């Protein structure tokens, strides 16, 4: 049976997390179809067709999918579900919003945020903020799954899948998008960045974030992240948050500045390849997971670090 991956897109391009989701789908066995549901989204469908491993792109283009509301998209996916063994989406805020609704309408469980595929019905997923890894088996006829993007490689380019137009579902008219305020940044997206510079409560205020961490991030071509404490204190917007309830990241290099290392924060970044911790408290738990620890005052070290980087 085939596998349906619900692509995340902005009507013109495909979001990076969908590439990792396609890789997870390749581990299940079966032809992979990618659903691009949007409005004026032919460009997104064309980009989807180039993803390696995709057998067919299903394009559903209608005005009521412009905002990709979970109500309309879930109804559409449920209508298309017959004939698929698995329905997958990335465990992003979009996928997390839509897929449980799909699962409930199909009367099946959802397997959330899988980090591994053991077999077509058995999956690995983190629970308790990543402190426990559970292996779960589903007996449901169709498996509805969200995928932790950082646990799978991104699928490459080079595919040339056929694009097939599929009929739109009804507009349920249950919700209306009034607007989006997206954080504008020249820096890479947090979940796709190779390097992340992240600040915690130790930064003191938002101005220090701006004055100290931004130049360092720019020097490294890094994304900026933050701990929940820094977000709660109002230093930076919530979409900077790395952790159990924020974003899950796994860059090549994660530099934690003034972050103590609560388990909820570690849950979001402990799969990073190299972790650097800068904190003046030598007892801070962040040092227990750091490859390189520097016990020092961040207000002195960060400018020095920036100078060293030339």
């Amino acid at each position, binding site marked *: 049976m085939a596998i349906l991956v619900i692509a995340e897109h902005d009507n013109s391009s495909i979001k990076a997390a969908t590439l990792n989701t396609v890789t997870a789908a390749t581990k299940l066995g079966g032809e992979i179809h990618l659903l691009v549901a949007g409005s004026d989204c032919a460009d997104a469908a064309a980009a989807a067709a180039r993803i390696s491993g995709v057998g067919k792109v299903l394009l559903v283009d209608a005005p009521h999918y412009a905002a990709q509301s979970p109500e309309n998209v879930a109804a559409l996916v449920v209508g298309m579900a017959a004939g698929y063994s698995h329905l997958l989406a990335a465990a992003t*805020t979009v996928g997390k919003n839509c897929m*449980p609704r799909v699962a*409930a309408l199909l009367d099946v469980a*959802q397997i959330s945020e899988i980090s591994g595929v053991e077999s077509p019905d058995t999956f690995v997923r983190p629970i308790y903020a990543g402190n426990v890894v559970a292996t779960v088996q589903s007996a449901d006829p169709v498996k509805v799954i969200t995928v932790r993007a950082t646990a799978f490689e991104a699928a490459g380019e080079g595919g040339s899948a056929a694009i097939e137009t599929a009929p739109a579902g009804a507009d349920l008219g249950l919700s209306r998008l009034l607007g989006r305020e997206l954080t504008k940044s020249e820096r890479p997206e947090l979940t796709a960045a190779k390097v992340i510079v992240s600040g915690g409560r130790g930064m003191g205020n938002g101005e220090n974030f701006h004055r100290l961490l931004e130049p360092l991030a720019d020097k490294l071509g890094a994304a900026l992240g933050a701990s929940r404490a820094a977000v709660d204190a109002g230093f930076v917007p*919530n979409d900077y948050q790395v952790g159990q*309830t924020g974003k899950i990241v796994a860059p090549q290099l994660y530099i934690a500045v003034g972050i103590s290392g609560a388990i909820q924060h570690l849950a979001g970044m402990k799969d990073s390849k190299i972790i650097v911790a800068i904190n003046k408290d030598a007892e801070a738990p962040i040092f*227990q997971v750091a490859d390189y*620890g*520097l016990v020092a005052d961040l207000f002195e070290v960060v400018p*020095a670090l920036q100078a060293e980087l030339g």
Partner: protein
Amino acid sequence: MKILVPVKRVVDYNVKVRVKPDGSDVDLANVKMSMNPFDEIAVEEAVRLKEAGVATEVVVVSAGVANCQETLRTAMAIGADRGILIQTDVELQPLAVAKLLQAVCAKEQPQIVLCGKQAIDDDANQTGQMLAGLLGWPQATFASKLVVAGQQATVTREIDGGLETVEVVLPAVVTTDLRLNEPRYATLPNIMKAKRKPLETTNPAALGVDVAPRLKTLKAAEPPKRSAGIKVADAADLVLKLKTEAKVI
């Protein structure tokens, strides 16, 4: 307007859980339990809506073992008016809970169901969305701001790239994100008062819901531990190590 708030009893967020020696599941014996933090935010928001004159009644509901009563009392100490306990010893998964809540909604007819966005034990992040699907209601998940006016709710949602504002027709399911509010501490008089608030007990059979688990946990394990690395002397040493040893810059 009535608001229904589901609350879950979970391992306290400060507890570092362990797996059982046989690797079959998480060891929950003698572990401190508390209300799921996101549910606490939901209770707080509902109580604020009542204090603002928008809501007339706040009903809290919990499904699980008899001790979930404590969680309901905590919610009532924050200001909920009454509680419903759906008592069962069966392991409840999100779909089962959503079906139980659907049955409660049929009886209680709330205009808003305000849920936590995820429970910090199974980290599933499903129940609110599933309930909305089963009821055919709109859903506004990960809310950082909620404004109710007439038959509509305007919800600011936390999304990956920033914020999004949606308008949903009531009845609707709203799930809470961290920044929606900061829950109050229950005062002693309110804790005492909560003990006398009505608490009704029912069970899945009485609600006509099959709660049999759909997913089977085959094993639970602790993830590979990261070991602490080395301490570096200063910024220059750090940059040198990142360049020559780790080779990441």
